[in-house]
């Protein structure tokens, strides 16, 4: 018999942890699932050397004490009331009365010449790797892309001994300055930002600048930066570059939840109590649109309480949630992407990294499906998450539809369990 939970929470970042804790406080049997082996999500990922911030430590302890922790479990298929999980030791099914989707977000990568060279990672990507032991001590790193995240990444890398060569921010200096001044309205955030900036004393913060290309023999050795004052070549061993975040909506989409659009990417639509369009399924945090960790924590609580039927308590948190979301909107405006970034990839630049499909191969295909059939673009192991997000940002194609399995699975996962009640599954992505 599969495990059964009153409230099942998918994703153990700030939103999921808060949801699990809130639901458990109403005496529900709560399960908490995450693909990673430790809870925390991306923003509270455990750092081998420095642990996690105090607030995170409390949230992690509180949630894992009251919820049944299902770590290292990838959700690969879903149907009303039931999820199929793949874990290192095999497949498992879990059943739920109410589901809270708190699957967070991934980084947006925009293709540019050289972005497939080893040593080129996401900005949040390198931060995640370093927290789990990736060596950067003494290595030269260029941190690039956009947003306040770059400062946090650079500061974290420095703590781990990296030599941060430069922070390359695509937003123009005037907009970044205006954003910094607007922080005066939220003193706690201003202090945090100031502290970050001070910890980065001596590191060049170039605004209105972006990585035009990465060069190297078999790995990144230098990057070409376009700045308002001309081009610049910087030598480095690592380039960490990310252009913001994209919500992980695939699970919600597979379950039939209505999606909205935020810019060129999909977000899960909800009402004020964070109910999705499907009965008994709630969504909280980044999956509803990028709002930051503070908004995610509040929304997790709202969703967790609403899932227990305590709607009055959920509604009382509405004002705080709207405040946190307003701040996120300011960040989004301050760091809106320069359209030149959408034109960095040349005809030979690989767009689909799984199948090695260059941009030129997509010429003449009007939609993602036609391009996929003809070129295999989006058909690989990432199931079009990387190239699909990028091509949507570039205005080429809509993001691909989620399909079962949500992630490539071991054949055993499909054969070990009775799959009669599951939708059609395919293993084409497992190559």
């Amino acid at each position: 018999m599969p495990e059964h939970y009153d409230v099942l929470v998918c994703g153990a970042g700030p939103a999921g942890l808060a949801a699990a804790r809130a639901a458990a406080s109403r005496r529900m049997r709560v399960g908490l699932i995450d693909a990673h082996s430790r809870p925390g999500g991306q923003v509270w990922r455990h750092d081998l050397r420095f642990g996690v911030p105090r607030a995170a430590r409390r949230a992690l302890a509180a949630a894992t004490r009251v919820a049944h922790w299902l770590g290292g479990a990838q959700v690969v298929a879903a149907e009303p009331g039931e999820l199929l999980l793949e874990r290192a030791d095999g497949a498992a099914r879990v059943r739920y009365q109410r589901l809270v989707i708190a699957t967070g977000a991934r980084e947006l990568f925009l293709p540019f010449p050289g972005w497939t060279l080893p040593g080129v990672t996401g900005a949040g990507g390198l931060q995640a790797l370093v927290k789990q032991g990736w060596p950067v001590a003494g290595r030269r790193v260029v941190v690039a892309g956009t947003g306040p995240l770059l400062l946090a990444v650079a500061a974290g890398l420095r703590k781990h001994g990296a030599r941060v060569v430069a922070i390359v921010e695509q937003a123009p200096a005037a907009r970044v300055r205006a954003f910094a001044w607007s922080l005066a309205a939220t003193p706690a955030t201003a202090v945090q930002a100031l502290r970050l900036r001070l910890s980065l004393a001596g590191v060049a913060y170039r605004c209105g600048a972006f990585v035009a290309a990465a060069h190297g023999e078999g790995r990144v050795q230098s990057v070409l930066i376009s700045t308002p004052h001309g081009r610049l070549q910087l030598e480095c061993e690592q380039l960490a570059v990310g252009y913001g975040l994209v919500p992980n909506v695939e699970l919600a989409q597979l379950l039939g939840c209505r999606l909205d659009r935020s810019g060129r990417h999909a977000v899960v639509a909800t009402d004020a109590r964070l109910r999705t369009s499907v009965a008994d399924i709630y969504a909280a945090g980044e999956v509803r649109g990028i709002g930051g960790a503070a908004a995610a924590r509040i929304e997790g609580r709202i969703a967790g309480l609403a899932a227990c039927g305590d709607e009055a308590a959920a509604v009382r948190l509405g004002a705080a949630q709207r405040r946190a979301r307003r701040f996120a909107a300011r960040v989004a405006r301050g760091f809106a992407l320069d359209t030149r970034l959408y034109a960095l990839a040349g005809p030979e630049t690989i767009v689909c990294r799984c199948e090695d499909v260059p941009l030129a191969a997509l010429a003449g295909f009007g939609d993602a499906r036609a391009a996929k059939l003809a070129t295999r673009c989006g058909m690989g192991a990432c199931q079009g998450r990387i190239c699909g997000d990028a091509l949507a940002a570039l205005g080429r194609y809509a993001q691909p539809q989620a399909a079962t399995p949500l992630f490539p699975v071991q054949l055993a996962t499909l054969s070990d369990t009775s799959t009669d009640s599951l939708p059609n599954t395919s293993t084409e992505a497992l190559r």
Partner: protein
Amino acid sequence: MQLEIDGLPVSVPAGANVAAAIARVAVDAHATPAFRRAVHGGERGPLCGMGVCFECRVRIDSRDHQRACMVLARAGMRVQTLA
């Protein structure tokens, strides 16, 4: 704890992932931390660091296509890159 990357022993702290172990071997040898070979032969390494991009796929204890960023290093593990 000690594990083996392409036949070379490497030590990593508890909680490190396989990606970190591979990178440590490469950095010590002043070499490229390459994980997998792409369709047209190019070498690739991790991009997203969080289980989305599948660029860090390696063979771990004879199991292919494991995401090195999602698997914790364990003592005695045998990892093969560019498999």
